[in-house]
């Protein structure tokens, strides 16, 4: 039965989500909160990727093909499978309040001065309208995917190939690149 591995991953992710985030390292030694926050984000991303990969096993890997219909069908099947597997997902599952705060701190210095103006101009360039800020929503077909300024990107935690950041106006979304799903979002990520 192909649903078992995915079910196991869902259980694991659910259990993981309940783990307190800011435990100290080794007893009473205070941990670096920044490092812990980023470590926490990485764990959450890893958990999502595990779920994604389990869904891929269920529906089949997207492979290069000459038939565009196959690409579309594969993308949609994967999106449906993932959305079903994380039907209880909610905003903030990956972008927790602590992670949001840290991300704003990472982005803010690069949005000042001339480079900052350039970065904001890039974000505005071809900014799509009517992108739903909703977990598990499909990124609207035919809408442009606004460029993420390289200066911002290299200052955020690197993501595995299954995920990417996109900035829509002032808001940051985490997008599943293969399933075209909005995995989580963070409103007002940039000033």
């Amino acid at each position, binding site marked *: 039965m192909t649903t078992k591995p995915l079910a196991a991953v869902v259980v694991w992710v659910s259990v993981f989500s309940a783990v307190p985030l800011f435990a100290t390292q080794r007893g009473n030694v205070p941990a670096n909160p920044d490092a812990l926050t980023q470590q926490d984000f990485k764990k959450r991303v890893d958990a999502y990727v595990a779920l994604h990969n389990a869904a891929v096993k269920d529906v089949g890997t*997207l*492979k*290069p*093909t*000459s*038939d*565009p*219909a196959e*690409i*579309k069908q*594969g*993308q949609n099947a994967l999106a449906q499978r993932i959305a079903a597997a994380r039907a209880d997902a909610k905003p903030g599952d990956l972008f927790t309040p602590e992670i949001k705060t840290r991300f704003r701190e990472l982005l803010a210095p690069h949005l000042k001065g001339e*480079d900052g103006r*350039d*970065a904001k101009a*890039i974000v505005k*360039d*071809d900014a799509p309208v009517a992108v739903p800020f909703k977990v598990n929503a499909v990124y609207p*077909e*035919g809408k*442009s*995917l*606004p*460029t*993420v*300024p*390289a*200066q911002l*990107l*290299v200052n955020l935690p*690197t*993501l595995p*190939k299954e995920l*990417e950041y996109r900035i829509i106006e002032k808001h940051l979304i985490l997008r599943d*690149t*293969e399933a*075209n799903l909005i995995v989580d979002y963070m409103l007002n990520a940039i000033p």
Partner: protein
Amino acid sequence: MRRLLVSTVLLLAATMPATQADDLRLPLKKDSVRFAVIGDTGTGDSHQRDVAHQLDAWRQKFPFTFVVMMGDNLYGGDSPKDYQREFEVPYKTLLDGGVKFYASLGNHDNPNERLYKPFNMNGERYYSFKPERASVRFFALDSNYIDDKQLDWLDQQLAESGSDWKICFFHHPPYSSGETHGSAVLQREKLEPMFVKHGVNVVLSGHEHFYERIKPQKGIQYFILGNSAKVRRGDLLKTDLTEKGWDQGYSFMLVEIAGDDLYFQTISDRATTIDGGVIHRVGKTEPTPGRSAQPVQPGPAPKPPVKP
């Protein structure tokens, strides 16, 4: 009646795309690498088809074997019908003739286009390829999303490319005189040091809906060609960057590489030559870590080949 006939002929001449490919200015040297450049193509409208028609016509005289695409390959969606209307139908003759297309991703492209075999991206958002028996390597980048992984990959790939011509292509132009977009400065800050370090010779991009040949920057020749289906008339500002620019119509470029020379000819959808010339590669051909590009020098437009 005669006046009417003349008027009709003139009107037809003005409205129908010309099909003459009799102004070829490329030398057609033996064993040269021949390819075409198109950008921002995916409209599926008559302008895209006109340019495609010209590509077919010019290929009869200049038998290029592949086409590089500067992104925005599909506007407005990526359904099977979009692939058909905005790629398969316009370029059917070329595809049937065995011409290969190598795509890069624009901001209007779903990155899953990387899975579409006729785009020859091997399932990757960025990739490189080297035509058989050619001394040139191409690097297709995803300028929408330049993260550390892509930069590391590019650094390694360029370092391994030896003495080949190095041509990078991607959507956002590092230098541009466009009013709407302008230079993609933030991408340039990340990419240009790597281009210089590894001796990239030529950079091709789109995004701006016009043609512009930039004066060589740090020994690198930059071209913008984002008007193969869309044009933004009047968007090209007068700046010191421009060697040659054109924002009054639709175009594509033919390129021939022979030895240390790269010949180019940019042609409109009316078969008019917009620009042409040769870029000569000088200096060391091996990359020198931490130093030198292999500077390019623009030269005069070559004479048309001698007709037999």
